[in-house]
């Protein structure tokens, strides 16, 4: 049968039913009318057959066939079960006469002869049909019937009268009679056959037993039921036979196993077993197919045709199931699969290596042919129940081709023999051509194997048999590599779903490395590639260093390309955690600046060592990111109040309203990160110790642990801890104070500053304390006895509440601001310790007060600097040197360089307590607001170690051009008195000299302290003569006795406004008597006797002499 012409009807017709033979004798012409009616009736109507008074479970139909009587159609003494089907079920003699006499003369002897022959046989069913339609009247008909009945008086139930063709009741009687006798014969036949089969089966343990004979008898037995319409019953017989054959094979290893099994091996497979190419047309299995493969192939053929018959039978009924077509297709595939696997098992158990190539070829085309038949019914790929069966069929086909290829590789001489065998059977099928070409050429074999592999993989994936996909792909690649063929790497659909099906074991890694050797050597860094390599590493537990190195390299490349680390969890397939992190109990309450220690145990399950790894414990202070929150373990959360520095448990319901959508910054105040860098993690348990300084305040819960290298990272929130891993960081600042600040310090000399440092908690490490100026001009003496701008002190570890005193030598440099007066001024220094800043305020008094004033001479201007020593410790300062220079930036354009003033004092100058030292310079230049830099170098006497101090500051001086010179004197107005007395009038004589020898008018104004002087005259005008001299006297009265300073003198230009004289511009002058004092005696009540005109003349003369003396 050609495949192209294959259809369901053609397959159905390939089965030829066994006919129910009914022999007929007598007048045939008259009975032929009834033959057609009987055939139609018994083929269409299903009849109930009773065995032992029980109905047979299936209704039967009888395919009747009428033949002429022959002796061989009767039972004989040596009848065999297989020959029973050739015997007539019923013998009919038809009598058709016109009268009783005609019967006696022409027919009676024939009937007697027929009956005599039947009677000589045993168990023969017969009937006599009396056809009286030729009789002319009823009387004649009755006489004929009466005559025949009298001849067969012993068998009244076997005589049937058919008076006329229109008599329906008579015909029904005949039909019922025939049915009865048919069932009687069927019962007898089946009893004999069952008994024979039973006897045959009981002899199966004998070595002389013929399995083929039993198989043939059983198949004919089933076909008989099949012919009678009991298709399901026949199917069950075939299935039982199938199981029986399989059981024989399974028990072939038992000690009592009979030897007849060897006959199955000894029978050669000469004929090519097939389904389509002539297989279905075979009615009975031939002796040449008496091998296991032939018998199983025959069974499969019959089962397939029977399935189609059953399908057609049910389709005609009214209660056909909607899935009838698909059920039939699935049934065919199942039977094909069972047959193929049974043949394979037979070859395995019987060690039948000779027939393996032939069996493989048979498997190849049996799968193709059975699937082709199923396609006639429906598309099996869409069936829900079919994927598994379909995948197994394709797997069997692949295995068959694979085994065939291996067998031919081992025994190349079998190729020619097998090729001839394939082509010897006509017609040549498509499968034969393909196999022939594959056998001849190795390349063609590889090509066909790839095709079969692709189909098989598709079906296996559809059936979710991914492990089988790995297996056959592994086999294919091994074969291709052994054949020096190129492996189709694109067929390796490696993905997470496929890899997940593989067990984590060393053999899996070995298989994958062999299968994907080219891929592993490629430069691909896709997720699938990383997943594959990491899976291999996990299967081997990191034992293959080369593959581990490959994995690390690819992850580095991937990290470089993506710009971020590879997430190890994303490429891991194992459901176990790659790292198990467990932390021991730690001190939950920590203070700022303390050191937190956490011991952790990390169990590495990745199988290889990690070098230069970074491990981080990330604590989160956000209320929504705690582990308890994420795991839904508690309805309470921890919250920290910063102001009150307390922690409290808060309901989650309350927190929901406070949740913020802002992401948590890991470096912000709501996060605490503890890291260990450059760690080596070995496979298994690793003990780690985390240490960090607490620098944040808040309540933190351990959120996750991250492990990262330069190429990948891993994060887990599943951290084991016996107690909730919560950390409460509170603030307890340490104390830094100055303990000797009850008295003020002296600026300008070294002072010993005692700083007390108190640690409020344990500080188990060395810390650095830095002292630096908060106000300018501070200098600190370091260990090298050199003044520095700041001081760094290394402190040893502290115990809790431990105090320690530090001695810091500090020098506050004096400047014009602090030396302006002896008042106490505040300065501060900054102490930095433990990331905190302490601003220490100190009180300073300058060691010397510096005042300056300028004195104007005729041609020079003098600067007098007065250094006053304030009260304090007995410190003797020694002015080693002093210099006064002009600032070049502020000099006149005429002088581009700084000018140095000429010192008039001799150095060194010592300054004791409460002493005054005067430094005098001759200023080098004149001008208004000229900046001068005053620099003093001084030391402290008897100070150990001897230190040098400096004063350096800008002094802004106004050096005007003075044109007048005055000299003042206080004279008593009493005659003859040399001294002034309190409350007595005195002359305040002012002599003025104009340096340019010009005449002018000036206005002189006096000013004095009212407690010392009473000014009788305050203002007076004086005229300078052409000689440049002028003189005037003003009356003043001393108020108190003692040394009184002279009144202050101011001179202004005279401006005439109408008739009044008002002061004009202020005139600068040099006062030679500046700073002088006059002794005033206490009041005296004696009268002056010489007061009068002579006294006035004498006084005037005395004044002139005095002026002359002054200007000498």
């Amino acid at each position, binding site marked *: 049968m050609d495949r192209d012409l294959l259809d369901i009807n053609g397959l159905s017709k390939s089965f030829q039913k066994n006919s129910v033979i009914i022999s007929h004798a007598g007048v045939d012409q008259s009975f032929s009318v009834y033959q057609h009616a009987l055939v139609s009736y018994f083929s269409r109507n299903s009849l109930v057959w009773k065995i032992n008074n029980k109905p047979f479970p299936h209704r039967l139909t009888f395919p009747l066939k009428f033949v002429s009587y022959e002796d061989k159609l009767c039972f004989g003494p040596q009848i065999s079960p297989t020959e029973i089907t050739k015997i007539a079920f019923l013998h009919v003699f038809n009598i058709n006469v016109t009268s009783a006499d005609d019967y006696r003369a022409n027919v009676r002897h024939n009937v007697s002869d027929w009956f005599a022959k039947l009677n000589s046989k045993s168990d023969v069913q017969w009937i006599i049909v009396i056809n009286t339609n030729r009789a002319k009247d009823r009387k004649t008909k009755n006489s004929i019937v009466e005559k025949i009945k009298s001849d067969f008086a012993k068998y009244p139930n076997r005589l049937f009268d058919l008076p006329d063709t229109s008599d329906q009741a008579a015909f029904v009687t005949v039909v019922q009679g025939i049915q009865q006798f048919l069932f009687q014969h069927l019962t007898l036949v089946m009893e004999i056959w069952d008994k024979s089969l039973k006897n045959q089966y009981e002899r199966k343990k004998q070595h002389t037993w013929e399995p083929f004979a039993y198989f043939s008898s059983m198949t004919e037995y089933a076909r008989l039921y099949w012919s009678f319409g009991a298709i399901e019953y026949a199917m069950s017989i075939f299935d039982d036979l199938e199981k029986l054959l399989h059981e024989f094979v*399974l*028990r*072939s*290893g*038992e000690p009592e196993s009979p030897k007849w099994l060897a006959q199955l091996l000894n029978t050669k497979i000469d004929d090519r077993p097939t389904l389509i190419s002539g297989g279905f047309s075979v009615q009975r299995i031939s002796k040449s197919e008496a091998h296991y493969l032939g018998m199983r192939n025959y069974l499969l053929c019959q089962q397939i045709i029977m399935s189609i018959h059953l399908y057609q039978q049910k389709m005609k009924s009214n209660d056909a199931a909607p899935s009838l077509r698909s059920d039939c297709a699935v049934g065919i595939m199942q039977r094909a699969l069972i047959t193929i*696997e049974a043949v*394979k*098992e037979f*070859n*395995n*158990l019987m*060690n039948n290596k000779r027939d393996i190539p032939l069996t493989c070829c048979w498997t190849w085309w049996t799968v193709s042919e059975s699937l082709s038949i199923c396609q006639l019914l429906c598309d099996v790929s869409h069936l829900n129940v079919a994927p*598994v069966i379909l995948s197994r069929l394709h797997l069997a086909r692949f*295995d068959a081709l694979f*085994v065939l290829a291996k067998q031919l590789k081992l025994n190349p001489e079998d190729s020619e023999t097998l090729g001839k065998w394939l082509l010897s059977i006509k017609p040549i099928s498509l499968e034969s051509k393909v196999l022939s070409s594959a056998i001849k050429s190795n390349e063609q074999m590889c090509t066909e194997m790839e095709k079969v592999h692709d189909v098989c993989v598709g079906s296996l994936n559809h*059936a*979710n*048999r*991914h*492990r*089988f996909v790995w*297996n056959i792909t*592994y086999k294919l690649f091994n074969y291709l590599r052994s054949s020096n063929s190129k492996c189709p790497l694109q067929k390796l659909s490696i993905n997470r779903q496929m890899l*997940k*099906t*593989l*067990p*984590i*074991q060393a*053999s*899996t890694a*070995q*298989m994958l490395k062999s299968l994907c050797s080219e891929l592993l050597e490629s430069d691909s860094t896709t997720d699938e590639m990383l997943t594959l390599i990491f899976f291999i590493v996990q299967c081997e537990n990191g034992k293959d260093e080369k593959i581990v190195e490959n994995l690390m390299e690819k992850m580095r490349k991937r990290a470089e390309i993506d710009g971020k680390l590879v997430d190890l969890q994303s490429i891991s397939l*194992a*459901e*176990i955690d790659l790292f198990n992190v467990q932390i021991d109990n730690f001190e939950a309450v920590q203070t700022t600046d303390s050191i937190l220690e956490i011991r952790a145990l990390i169990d590495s399950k990745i199988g290889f060592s990690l070098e230069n790894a970074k491990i981080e414990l990330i604590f989160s202070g956000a209320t929504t990111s705690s582990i308890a929150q994420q795991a839904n373990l508690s309805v309470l959360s921890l919250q920290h109040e910063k102001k009150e520095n307390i922690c409290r448990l808060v309901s989650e319901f309350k927190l929901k309203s406070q949740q913020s959508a802002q992401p948590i910054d890991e470096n912000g105040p709501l996060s605490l990160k503890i890291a260990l860098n450059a760690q080596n993690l070995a496979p298994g348990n690793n003990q780690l110790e985390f240490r960090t300084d607490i620098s944040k305040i808040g309540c933190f819960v351990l959120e996750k642990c991250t492990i990262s290298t330069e190429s990948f990272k891993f994060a887990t929130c599943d951290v084991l801890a016996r107690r909730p891993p919560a950390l409460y960081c509170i603030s307890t600042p340490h104390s830094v104070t100055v303990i000797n600040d009850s008295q003020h310090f002296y600026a300008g000399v070294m002072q010993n500053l005692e700083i007390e440092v108190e640690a409020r908690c344990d500080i188990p490490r060395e810390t650095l304390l830095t002292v630096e100026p908060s106000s300018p001009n501070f200098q600190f003496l370091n260990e090298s006895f050199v003044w520095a701008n700041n001081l760094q002190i290394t402190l040893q570890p502290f115990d809790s509440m431990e105090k320690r005193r530090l001695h810091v030598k500090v020098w506050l440099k004096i400047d014009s601001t602090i030396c302006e007066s002896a008042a106490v001024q505040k300065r501060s220094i900054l102490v930095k310790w433990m990331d905190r800043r302490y601003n220490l305020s100190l009180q300073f008094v300058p060691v010397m007060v510096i005042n300056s004033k300028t004195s104007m001479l005729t041609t020079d201007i003098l600067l007098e600097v007065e250094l006053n020593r304030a009260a304090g410790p007995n410190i003797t300062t020694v002015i080693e040197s002093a210099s006064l220079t002009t600032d070049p930036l502020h000099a006149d354009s005429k002088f581009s360089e700084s000018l140095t003033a000429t010192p008039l004092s001799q150095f060194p100058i010592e300054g004791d307590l409460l002493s005054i030292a005067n430094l005098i310079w001759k200023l080098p230049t004149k001008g208004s607001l000229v900046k001068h830099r005053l620099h003093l170098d001084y030391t402290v006497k008897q100070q150990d170690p001897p230190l040098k101090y400096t004063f350096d500051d800008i002094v802004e001086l106004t050096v005007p051009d003075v044109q007048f010179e005055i000299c003042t004197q206080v004279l008593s107005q009493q005659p003859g008195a040399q001294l002034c007395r309190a409350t007595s009038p005195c002359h305040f004589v002012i002599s003025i000299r104009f340096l340019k020898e010009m005449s002018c008018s000036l206005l002189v104004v006096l000013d004095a302290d009212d407690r010392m002087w009473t000014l009788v005259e305050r203002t007076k005008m004086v005229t300078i003569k052409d000689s440049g001299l002028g003189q005037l006297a003003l009356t003043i009265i001393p108020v108190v006795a003692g040394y009184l300073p002279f009144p202050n003198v101011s001179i202004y230009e005279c401006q005439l406004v109408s008739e009044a004289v008002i002061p004009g511009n202020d005139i600068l002058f040099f006062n030679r008597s500046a700073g002088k004092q006059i002794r005033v005696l206490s009041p005296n009540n004696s009268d002056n006797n010489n007061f009068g005109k002579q006294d006035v003349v004498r006084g005037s003369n005395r004044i002139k002499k005095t002026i002359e003396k002054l200007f000498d």
Partner: protein
Amino acid sequence: MLGVVGFFIYAKENSRLFDSVNPRYAQQLLEIEMFTFCSLDIVDEKSTKASEMFLGQLYNDQKWRSFGYITNTGVRMILVLDATSAASLKDQEIRLIFKRFHGHYCNTISNPFYEIGTPMQSKWLDEGINDLYSISE
């Protein structure tokens, strides 16, 4: 000769808890293990509709045959036999083997120091394997 090739126990997550291969078949270890994990496909397929723990014969090829057993907690046991062996174990005998090993498995996980999911090493399993291989010989 029964031809017992090996016995394997797999956890639900495809991790292997116990494996033992008859020393007589040591040279074919890779083939046996690949055959075994192919059988896991059949176990996954049958376990969803199995009415009892014993899953029957799973898979056979030219060399090996496998039988499966699944516990209530999803632990799979696979017995691998030599397909070319003349003798054959009856269905009931295989059931007894699995039942016995199920008891050994329960004894093993009852050890308080055994961590669930890790490879098993216990005297019960070793003794069971020795008995199984002695039957094979």
